[in-house]
């Protein structure tokens, strides 16, 4: 991937759109670099998280405890400034002081929906009910072990994720436009859990299954944990509004060629025809994938979506949306088999 150190200093480009795209790419890179300073050995996960954030999606991590999920979520949350100085220009943000940069909910079987969303509380001073904002009112929310709580709480959480609002006692409270959830589930310890069904999994843009970080990175974590503990909570490097602006710019400026779209459709059709797949992916998953592809391209400094982006994102976007035939487990193989031929056609199309 080309390093774009010189991007900020900018070249003498006349097109305004291009200048703003350069700025948007700069925002993503600043965010990435800041998080990289806090989370070591998880570069790919950081990139995917930033892509999901930029594409306005949420991430489900299948991971084991102590692998740095909280550190990641916290680092992202803290790298995003509240944007207080811009608040005056933003009339839709009167509730902004309820919004925390980062929250974490540990899901347990006895959790109640109000523990997530918040609840009206009787204030004896004003003799009235006041809504007490729950932990979902945050920029970045870490929903730990989401499969361990009851379906009722899960549905409250998923409404928040899907609609960007919570409804309590018929009153609807909007969440921040930046609302970004990193949910986790333990892939092994399944006793007493309520596994998320496929339609609910559909709310997550990515499902990322991760391996342990490599030896060198693990050593580095041990070497630098003291510094990072002391320096945590560094100054925000990007503001909320900058990210929202970057979202808009990337959506507008990063081109998706027709060949890319046909590749996506061809891969989907291949998957649906595959005997090993019981139910293929939805059309919506492809629609959701487009902004993610644009974000991935921008993060790599490109203004067009390329085969690389598909290779990176498609397994993460489609992996949890496919229902495999009973007895078939090798998802990676299935995806690989069905991607190769459309990708080859895409590569050839550029010379045609």
């Amino acid at each position: 991937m080309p390093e774009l150190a010189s991007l900020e200093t900018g070249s003498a480009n006349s097109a305004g759109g291009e200048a703003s795209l350069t700025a948007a790419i700069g925002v993503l890179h600043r965010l990435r670099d800041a998080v990289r300073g806090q989370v070591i050995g998880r570069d790919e996960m950081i990139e995917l998280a930033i892509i999901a954030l930029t594409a306005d999606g949420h991430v489900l991590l299948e991971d084991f405890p102590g692998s740095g999920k909280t550190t990641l979520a916290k680092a992202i949350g803290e790298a995003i400034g509240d944007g207080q100085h811009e608040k005056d220009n933003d009339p839709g943000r009167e509730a902004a002081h309820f919004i925390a940069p980062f929250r974490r909910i540990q899901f347990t079987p006895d959790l109640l929906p109000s523990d997530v969303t918040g609840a009206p509380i009787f204030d004896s001073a004003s003799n009235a009910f006041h809504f007490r904002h729950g932990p979902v009112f945050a920029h970045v929310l870490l929903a730990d072990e989401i499969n361990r709580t009851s379906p009722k709480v899960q549905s409250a959480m998923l409404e928040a994720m899907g609609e960007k609002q919570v409804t309590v006692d018929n009153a609807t409270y909007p969440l921040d436009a930046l609302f970004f959830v990193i949910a986790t589930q333990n892939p092994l310890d399944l006793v007493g859990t309520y596994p998320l069904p496929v339609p609910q999994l559909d709310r997550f843009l990515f499902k990322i299954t991760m391996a342990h970080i490599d030896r060198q990175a693990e050593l580095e974590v041990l070497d630098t944990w003291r510094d990072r503990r002391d320096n945590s909570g560094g100054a925000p490097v990007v503001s909320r509004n900058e990210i929202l602006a970057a979202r808009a710019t990337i959506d507008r400026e990063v081109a998706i060629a027709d060949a890319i779209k046909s590749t996506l459709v061809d891969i989907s059709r291949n998957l649906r025809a595959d005997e090993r797949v019981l139910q293929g992916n939805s059309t919506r998953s492809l629609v959701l994938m487009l902004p993610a592809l644009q974000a991935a391209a921008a993060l790599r400094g490109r203004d067009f979506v390329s085969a690389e982006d598909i290779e990176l994102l498609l397994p993460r976007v489609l992996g949890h949306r496919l229902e495999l035939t009973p007895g078939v487990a090798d998802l990676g193989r299935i995806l690989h088999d069905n991607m190769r031929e459309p990708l080859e056609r895409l590569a050839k199309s550029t010379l045609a």
Partner: protein
Amino acid sequence: MQDKASARIRAHPRPAERLERTAPALARAAIIAGSLWLLSLSLTVATGSIAAVAGCVAACLLAKLHENNPLLRQLRAVFIMLAAVALAMLGVILAGWIAGRGLVAALFEPIAAFHLAEAIKWLCFSFALVGAMRILAQRSSVGGIVEVLLVASGFTVVLSAHRNGMINRPFFLGDFALSRGLDPATVLLALGCGAVLLLAALLLVEDNRRRLPYHFALFALLCLSLVGYVRSFGLPTPQMTDDLGLTGNSAQARENPFHDGENNTENKQAPVAVAVFRDDYEPAGGAYYFREGAYSQWNGYMLDFTSHPGMDRDLIPAPGAQARETVGGAGRKPVTTTIGTLVPHRSPFGLDTPVALAPAPNPNPLRFKRTWDAHSLVPQFDLNALLGMAAGNPAWPAEVREEYLRLPDDPRYGELAREITGGLRPQYAADPFAQAWAIKAHLDRNGIYSLANEHAYAEDPAASFLFGDLTGYCMHFAFASTYMLRSIGIPARVGIGYSVPAANRAGGSSLLIQAIHGHAWPEIYFAGHGWVIVDPAPQQTLVDMTTDPQNELQQLLGDMLRGDAAFEEFLAEQAGFAIDWRLARNAMLSLLAALVLAGYAVKLYRLWIPALAGRPAQHRLSYRAALDRLAAVGIRRRFGESREAFARRVGALAPALQALTAAHLAHALGGHRPGPANTGSLAGEDWRGMRRKVGAEIRAGTSAGKRLLAMLDPFSWLRAK
């Protein structure tokens, strides 16, 4: 729902898939059946061959169908072998019962019973053999070797007949090849190589064993070079046909023409030469004699080729020369024959008595080693005319006559000769021919023809034979006769060459001389008639000296040697469906040259067009040119690999490709707008520069040899994608 339905439909194999699964099995069945058919051809009748093919195909298909049968897989290999042997034996027993009992023969007719028995025998045999082989081949890779060996042996057995010169077998192949001017041996060898290669390829494909494709390529190369060798140098000729076999005229047996135990009738059918008669001639004695030389001078141990200038003046010293002395006379007739040897042969020979040998044009150097015209004066006189003739040439000096009368210092020869001739009627008692005939008759009656005898290492093998068990072969009879004739004052010598039964000619004009026909015989000189062959023919023989009639081969070789209109007509008759090989070859070569030229043209075009094209097409053309150069040095994108991943992969060799790829993709996928990645150092997109940089990096990173190959390859651009 529709997806599911289509998925369920796809679970059943489509016709193409079914073909893909069964085609290798069918091809293998065809190959093995073909080789079994070839093997069975010489062992059974047509019914048996058909049954063998049927059994083979059935075994192949059944083995394929029950490939995954758990019962079959659990069975021990030993039991499978035993079952196969039992089945084969059952077939033999059943066939014996059918053919042996009169029941079936009575119900139908004897010939039907015989065919039925053959069919059952071969069906069981081939089913058992191929079935066991297939099951073993499916189990282990060693089993596959047995299979390849069987196929190879099927062709080798047929080819081994060729080794003895039976170039016309099998007939359908021989005719096909000969009518097109090809050597049948090469055709059969090519077929065999092709079958073995195909079978090896099938084993490679089906069993998915880790044999490397280039192992197979090497194997193919070996087979091809074998065919090429045979095409250029012919088949290796067995050395033993060089000598005259039974006459002992070979280098190592020079001192001792009697070599026991070395003679056998194994290669008796091997053709040695073919003679074409230009004149009408039918021998009176029932055999054609071709004289090659004679043992006439006593060397202290036995008779040998003469070194005396006065002796054997009728023999021709070298081809092209003439006999120094000829005896014409009323009893002899000039006959010309053309002779072509099929194996290397020491000295030329001619029909008795050759007077001149003249080299003749060789119509087929691949087939005939040497060809010559032999002009002979053949004897036509009645043997009775020889009665009363004086033996020996009055013109001989005394010392020559003396030489022709020398024999071992053994009184028994004279005693026996006088005893035999003593029984002649008084009026013939002193007549040389009558005496010679009496000696011949004695040997005819009492001698036993055999190739296994123990006389060779006796001091005088002829004495050991004559005064021993009288068991020996032509050499013994010839020497013994000659010594006896000499002992009673008749000048005689041992003639060597070939003697072919007159019946072998079968009415045609050509005569096939085979190894078995090598011969030696006693000859007597009669004044006015020259050397006359008086050949003993023992009535008892321990050796089967008969040969199968080789009429087709005889006629075929004769036609080839004659090179005359008949053969040309035969070729012309076949020309309707013959292929003009020269034209076909030239067409192929031209096509190949045109293809190569077109390849170079496209290659150069794709390499140079970016320099001439305008900017809109540059991103495509420049990138393609770079890909072409990489493909030429063997670096190409893998199937399904993205362009970026490919650029990263070759980053070590050509880092500039990454920039070129990024620029190319920005245009191809990015709506023709220079992307941020292409700003800065790449602003304005210096296509020419990027292209050249990639080229320079490839040059710097590859060896000169590889670059030379890359330059020469006309189709390197086909690999760029």
